[in-house]
């Protein structure tokens, strides 16, 4: 079995968000991590590898520095890493990103593609389903359990108040939730092996069946009209009232906010 896992290097919001003087995010100043949902997707792939035997190839799109997440993935047990990087790919929205990744994946053989549900920087949850659409394969989002049965995959697909047990014929794309599993740690020896291994670097020329008009900033249907830091809201009102007045006060506020 061959599994492709898409991962993204994202700023670690836990380490504090840093901004440039002009208000844009200072990505360079922030520590980076493998996006948590993607890491769960990788762990799911590695468990399938442990259980059924599989070759796990990790693909990322980003700046050359994104190579780090590929090393990390390989230190956890992935077999191959592919970095898709090219200046013409910069500024991509989810449409252009999914076109790029689909163009890269068309070079590979795969039975399963696993992506994280969403990245913690964009929170869109779009790229996985969009890749599946471009590749013309079924998608199962929000996977909380994955099993293989013959040439099919059986997945528990989470919804708000239920889950569906779905069966899809492979090849298929699955998007993983961080809750899917507890990702393993890298091993110390795996880290050194990962740095000795070759990482494949692909640029625009390596993308298959993708038109220039679908790539990068120019190929992005959505455009940013305005971006700003969220203004932290300061303290609101503080009152000291007797209990009955306090209750009336709260009820009034709940009414004003259409809660009741």
């Amino acid at each position, binding site marked *: 079995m061959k599994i492709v896992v898409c991962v993204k290097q994202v700023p670690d919001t836990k380490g504090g968000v840093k901004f440039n003087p002009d208000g844009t995010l200072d990505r360079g100043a922030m520590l980076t991590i493998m996006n948590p949902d993607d890491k769960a997707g990788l762990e799911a792939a590695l468990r399938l590898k442990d259980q059924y035997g599989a070759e796990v190839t990790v693909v990322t799109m980003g700046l050359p520095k994104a190579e780090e997440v590929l090393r990390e993935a390989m230190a956890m047990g992935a077999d191959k890493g592919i970095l898709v990087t090219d200046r013409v790919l910069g500024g991509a929205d989810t449409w252009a990103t999914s076109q790029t990744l689909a163009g890269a994946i068309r070079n590979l053989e795969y039975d399963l593609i696993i992506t994280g549900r969403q990245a913690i920087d964009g929170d869109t949850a779009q790229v996985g*389903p969009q890749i599946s659409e471009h590749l013309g394969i079924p998608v199962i989002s929000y996977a909380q359990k994955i099993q293989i049965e013959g040439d099919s995959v059986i997945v528990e697909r989470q919804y708000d108040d239920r889950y569906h*047990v779905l069966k899809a014929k492979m090849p*298929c794309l699955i998007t993983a939730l961080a809750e899917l599993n507890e990702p393993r740690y890298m091993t110390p020896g795996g880290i050194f092996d990962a740095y000795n291994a070759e990482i494949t670097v692909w640029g625009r020329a390596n993308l298959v069946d993708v038109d220039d008009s679908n790539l990068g900033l120019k190929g992005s249907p959505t455009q940013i009209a305005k971006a700003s830091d969220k203004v932290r809201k300061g303290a609101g009102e503080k009152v000291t009232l007797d*209990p009955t007045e*306090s209750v009336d006060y709260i009820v009034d506020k*709940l009414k004003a906010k259409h809660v009741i």
Partner: protein
Amino acid sequence: MNIQDYKGVFVFAQQVDNVLSGIALELVGKGKDLAKDLNTEVTAVLVGSDVKGLADELAEYGADKVIVVDDPELKEYRTEPYAHALSSVIDEFKPEIFLVGATAIGRDLGPRVSARIHTGLTADCTQLDIGDFPINPVPGKEQLHNQLLMTRPAFGGNTIATIACPDFRPQMATVRPGVMQKAPKEAGKKAVVVEFNPGFTPNDKYVEILEVVKAVSDVADIMDAKILVSGGRGVGSPENFKILEDLAEVLGGTVSCSRAVVDAGWKPKDLQVGQTGKTVRPNVYFAIGISGAIQHVAGMEEADVIIAINKDETAPIFEVADYGIVGDLNKIVPALTEKLKAELAAK
């Protein structure tokens, strides 16, 4: 693509088990506002099996038109037939705006549809306006009017971006549930109902549903809760959480807690809000007997409304609360529950 051909505001009227989801009516409400600004109509797209009967409810909440795609293949939500339904509707009716709820269904369906019809999709919007793009005139660039400006938080709520989709139609957005207001109900109001079936032929992209398992877990996910009643060490004892549970029940909310409560073994880790617990964004967050350590605040400051009750007036929670009440939670909380019961009964 001739952008001028695309007219009208469409919303996906999500239903589950043939019951309209709250988001469906919220989107109709918001769609109506946008349609008014554009001098057009709002159309609800109802997809399912045997769902035509829901059209009236959509009409009563403001839908001018309801397109019903009714087919046995659409009984339970599955990505492929639903994506086929929506993209066929878009091809046929050419709306300029298409809104989908940012639910576990919509966040799967939206991207699949937008990829199929090649347009942009803005995720998890919290604000939608009609305006100009670019917002301010830029020399050498045509300023387009009547654009959908889609505003969304990103980066864990640290940034806010407003997105436009000037060159493709429809302008698509998923909208976070609970943010938009539904319109007041107009009993008996009717909409034009159009039935449309593009044909559904199963192929390899149709997944098979082996089983539908409805949640039996009694521990609601605090991340999904619209109202959280959260308690801290100040609640005093595990038994005393009863008064918080009562309040949560009246409001249809869920109880959560601070780390101190989990550490003390009063509540399970699942319910912990904060840096080492969960990050929540409810519409209303009650912080009861919670001092408001920075680690806790990091997990709840995105709540739309924060109401804090604490006897210590210097508690840092008051620095983030919209409404802070200095007082005894043991008196205020039960009284609040009673009052709310009375208020809701009167409605």
